[in-house]
């Protein structure tokens, strides 16, 4: 077929749509609403998925967490695990540090919701006791000052490194915190640094932490009471081997139910799988409105065929084949659907722009492509029956139609 054939096909279809503007708009409205709701649901899904992935990315790859209690893939069991009496000891940390696959081993003592006081100001945050390896393990970045180092640990220095929110709540501004004193669990600590704002976390909310060397709190006996041990493998390929070795080492002294070794990526995948399942369900519900829109398209196309019976007869008389008539009406149906899809996409994009500062939502090319693909499929599916009716009209009956 010549190029002019296809140009005329599309031109005729567009003309038909704009000849009956109100009818076309009302028909496309169903597709519009359907596309907008599906795109928004997918955008929220993508935004949340990316947000969750980014949070886990912050932790880095090649990571393992050794935690107290048995998690067994049930994330809700994490809180029950914390209630367990079992704790790790410094000698466990030393044993794990001897593993060749382990690049970093950091013990973590956690006491949630402790009162942190400075003068008349107080704030409830999490007390984290660890060694100098925690700075890299948690990907801290200094806003002001510095993290404590090995000499602070060995010297049992009473120093503190504050999370952003902690510093902001206790002082006029986080920048003024360095050199000041905070009191935690009866221990006076000199602030030596404040972290840049992070947002979210795994073991605790980083921004609400006060971090100190575990040697600064002998009365809490952290060396026998670590909740977590953070490990980083030398490389991603050695992660699995490290996991097996960690289990083997700890199993020498403890029961299998006393501890769990978790890869954050496993946690991430489990979370994302659950989330994807829910998101697909919601998108499916949103797609029902697309089906309703498609029925509207089919109805209008049947009307269009009836209105143009004589025209179909004329076209057949001058040599149009059945497939030419079929194609003409299918193209019109597709363009009508795409018309609704474009407006639905634009509306969804505007909504995402407006809410993005407050809620994770993103529209990427896959979502745009899906919207166009689904709308085209709707146009083809719901337009095919009216198109076939048009194509199967007898030329002589059609041409005589008044």
């Amino acid at each position, binding site marked *: *077929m*010549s190029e*002019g*054939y296809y140009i*005329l096909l599309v031109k*005729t279809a567009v*003309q*038909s749509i704009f*000849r009956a503007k109100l009818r076309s708009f009302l028909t496309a409205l169903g597709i519009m609403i359907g596309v907008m709701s599906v795109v928004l649901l997918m955008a929220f899904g993508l935004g949340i998925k990316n947000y969750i992935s980014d949070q886990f990315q912050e932790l880095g790859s090649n990571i393992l967490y050794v935690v107290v209690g048995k998690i067994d893939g049930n994330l809700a069991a994490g809180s029950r695990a914390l209630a367990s009496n079992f704790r790790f000891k410094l000698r466990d940390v030393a044993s794990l540090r001897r593993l060749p696959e382990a690049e970093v081993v950091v013990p973590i003592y956690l006491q949630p919701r402790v009162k942190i006081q400075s003068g008349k100001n107080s704030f409830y945050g999490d007390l984290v006791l660890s060694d100098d390896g925690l700075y890299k393990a948690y990907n801290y970045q200094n806003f002001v000052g510095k993290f404590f180092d090995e000499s602070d640990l060995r010297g049992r220095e009473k120093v503190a490194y504050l999370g952003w929110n902690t510093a902001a709540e206790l002082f006029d501004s986080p920048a003024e915190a360095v050199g000041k004193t905070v009191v935690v669990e009866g221990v006076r600590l000199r602030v030596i640094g404040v972290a840049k704002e992070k947002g979210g976390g795994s073991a605790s909310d980083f921004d609400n932490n006060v971090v100190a060397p575990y040697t600064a709190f002998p009365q809490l006996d952290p060396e026998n009471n670590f909740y977590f041990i953070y490990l980083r493998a030398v490389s991603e390929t050695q992660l699995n081997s490290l996991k097996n070795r960690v289990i083997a080492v700890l199993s020498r002294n403890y029961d299998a139910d006393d501890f769990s070794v978790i890869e954050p990526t496993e946690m991430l995948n489990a979370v994302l799988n659950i989330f994807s399942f829910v998101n697909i369900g919601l998108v499916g519900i949103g797609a029902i409105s697309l089906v309703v829109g498609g029925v509207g398209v089919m109805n209008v196309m049947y009307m269009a065929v009836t209105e143009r019976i*004589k*025209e179909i007869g*004329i*076209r*057949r*008389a*001058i*040599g*149009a*084949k*059945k497939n*030419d008539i079929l194609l003409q009406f299918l193209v019109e149906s597709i363009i009508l659907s795409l018309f609704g899809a474009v407006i639905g996409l634009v509306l969804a994009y505007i909504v995402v722009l407006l809410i993005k500062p407050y809620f994770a939502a993103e529209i990427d090319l896959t979502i745009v492509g899906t919207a166009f693909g689904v709308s085209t499929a709707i146009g083809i599916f719901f337009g095919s029956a009216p198109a076939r009716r048009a194509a199967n009209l*007898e*030329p*002589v009956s059609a*041409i005589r139609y008044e």
Partner: protein
Amino acid sequence: MIKVSSISKIYTTDNIKFYALKDISLTIEKGEYVAVLGASGSGKSTLMHIMGLLDKPSIGAVYFEKNLTTKLSDNQLSEIRNKKIGFVFQQFNLINRLTVYENVALPYFYSGRKDSKIKQRILNLLEDLQIKEKENKYPNQLSGGQQQRVAIARALIMEPDYIFADEPTGNLDSKTGKEIISILESLNKKGKTLIVVTHDKSLADRAKRKIVLQDGRLLS
């Protein structure tokens, strides 16, 4: 050559049969100028539709250039209508949503051919019919005579061998009607087979041969 052999067209309503055509046999040779004459309801349009491969007889055979048309597929029939036959109708039957140019070009688009000179051919045809300046107008912007000229141009664009004209002057004033008939007859002089269906005896008398129908039967 178009040949119909013992064709009948029967319509059945409530078990009652109505014969639009009854046992018609005739042959039209290439290059002939034939008028099919009859009163309203005599079956002349039905005969034209069958000879022009728009319709099929209920009984009998139709041969188009020695091919038995009942053995041809729908696509083959469409192709013959596209390339071998041109139709001119009483009500012009132009497509109002297309321009004059697009109406004339439509058979070419359906032909599947690629002709780099098609645009010039269309414009030459419009010029020959004295409507070139109306190229970008729509049918509802033209007079009846102009619309019929566009219909003739559309019928000629594929250079068919057969022109079927069904009451071509029925919706025109006498002066314009004479112009149109003159154009059609000039095509016959150039070798095209012209079949004019009419109830107008004076128009039928202009043809070299008359086929007279009455109540679906061939009188002469």
